[in-house]
């Protein structure tokens, strides 16, 4: 059994912060390479009392998709996916994300650093109402002033079809909210033990800081136990290495 008295880790704080963004939703999809959002989705589902459906790409037990690779995207087009998760090798203060590479775009396809590629971001960022951005590395390198390549833009000009977009950005240090009209992040809470100055120092883009920044709520014992037992087991189906590393499960 996991130790519920062990301190809450930065990854766990990210999971809890993401889960806090998923209340009252009907259907969440989780893409590739997303163990932390996947854990948050499972937690939110367990806490929802059965009203939330979670679809995890690459899962056998938690995927409704039988119509090939396009179905996730078609499903999102139909308005059937309330939340999705995206990351980026670079994320800037306008919530533009870069999954392609670092370097001058004029040299494309050559790059100083090449990331895997945009995956479904250039579509899902437009059509999923609540996209939660996340990064495991809260540094000025990742959270930069301006991305070198826009895989998917944070905001769109008026008239561009865009029912969806970014709502929040979760890092190991804090939770940012994104205001689509202003195209700007606001620091919403810092995780326990992280100061506002520390966030400011580690962040390469400008963001709003309210007069008083609360601490990201820590979980009660019941939620922590749920996370470290049930969620750990559930996410181990798709991410065994992650679950083993984080909770010794799987």
């Amino acid at each position, binding site marked *: 059994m996991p130790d519920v008295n062990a301190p809450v880790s930065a990854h766990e704080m990210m999971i809890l912060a993401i889960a806090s963004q998923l209340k009252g939703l009907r259907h969440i999809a989780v893409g590739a390479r997303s163990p932390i959002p996947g854990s948050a989705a499972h937690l939110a589902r367990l806490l929802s009392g059965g009203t939330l459906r979670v679809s995890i790409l690459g899962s056998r037990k938690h995927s409704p998709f039988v119509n*090939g*690779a396009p179905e996730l995207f078609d499903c999102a087009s139909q308005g059937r996916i309330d939340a999705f998760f995206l990351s980026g090798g670079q994320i800037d203060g306008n919530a533009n994300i870069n999954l392609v590479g670092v370097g001058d775009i004029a040299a494309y396809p050559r790059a100083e650093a*090449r990331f895997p590629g945009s*995956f*479904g971001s250039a579509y899902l960022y437009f059509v999923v109402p609540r996209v939660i951005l996340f990064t495991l590395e809260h540094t000025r390198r990742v959270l930069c002033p301006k991305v070198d390549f826009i*895989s*998917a833009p944070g905001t769109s000009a008026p008239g561009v*079809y865009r029912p969806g977009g970014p709502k929040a950005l979760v890092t190991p240090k804090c939770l940012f909210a994104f205001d689509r009209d202003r195209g700007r992040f606001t620091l919403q809470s810092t995780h326990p033990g992280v100061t506002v100055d520390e966030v400011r120092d580690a962040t390469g883009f400008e963001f709003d800081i309210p007069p008083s920044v609360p601490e990201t709520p820590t979980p009660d014992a019941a939620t922590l136990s749920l996370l470290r037992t049930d969620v750990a087991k559930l996410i181990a189906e798709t991410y065994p290495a992650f679950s083993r590393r984080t909770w010794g499960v799987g």
Partner: protein
Amino acid sequence: MTDVLSIDDLVARIPDGASIALPSDYSGCAMTAVRKLIQRGVRDLHVISMPQGGFQVDMLVGAGAVARIEAAAVTLGEYGIAPRFTAAIKSGEIEMWDSTCPALLASLQAGEKGLPFVPFRGIIGSDLLRVRPDWKVIDNPMAESGVKDPIVLLPATRPDVALFHALKADAHGNVWIGVQRELMTAAHAAKQALVTVERIEDADFLRDPVMAPGTISSLYVNAIAVAKEGAWPVGLDNAYAADHKALQDYTSAAATAEGFARWIANPAQVAAHA
């Protein structure tokens, strides 16, 4: 009608310079066939990943077999970056057509339907539009009068070849692919579908109401070859898991061109899965 060939004869149907649709790591990769292609010294392939490239793309790139890649991503997933792909991008030796998953799939579906192009939401404001001159933004011609509604048009894709691995074929050349329906789309859209399978069963999947929905008709399958463990080392759904040690070994070896050359040339395990 569908020909049943040896793996060598199957890959002999893929000419240098062909555009070739290849599945993502999780949906049926003809790994044995890809190694045979590399052994043959194939050149100038235009790879179309459906929609992500993985180990087979990295191997083909490492072998110098690739002129161009169209993909929404190239990655070894939990094993990390695709080392030979990344090196080739840095050295500028391959042409890259970055895409986004549903756009790449939509182009294949347009090819399946014989359409010249297909409209597509999203993308506007992405730099993908800057690096994809074959994509175009127009004002939606069906929008209400006076309303500007910019929308992307994508050209249809009809690959010369679709190459993948599946669990089984029947005696008539029908291939069961289960829920990996993008393989059916690719077989329909491609000029030639070449498939390796674990086994050929004495059955008729099309006449079996339960098997038929997950089956590609032989009408679309030009040739089949039996390749036992033909998806090794990436694994095959409903059959065998990925060989984690072999994938880890590959990833480590492929960090350098020399390591890649050693791995692909003749490691004991590759020989055991020929």
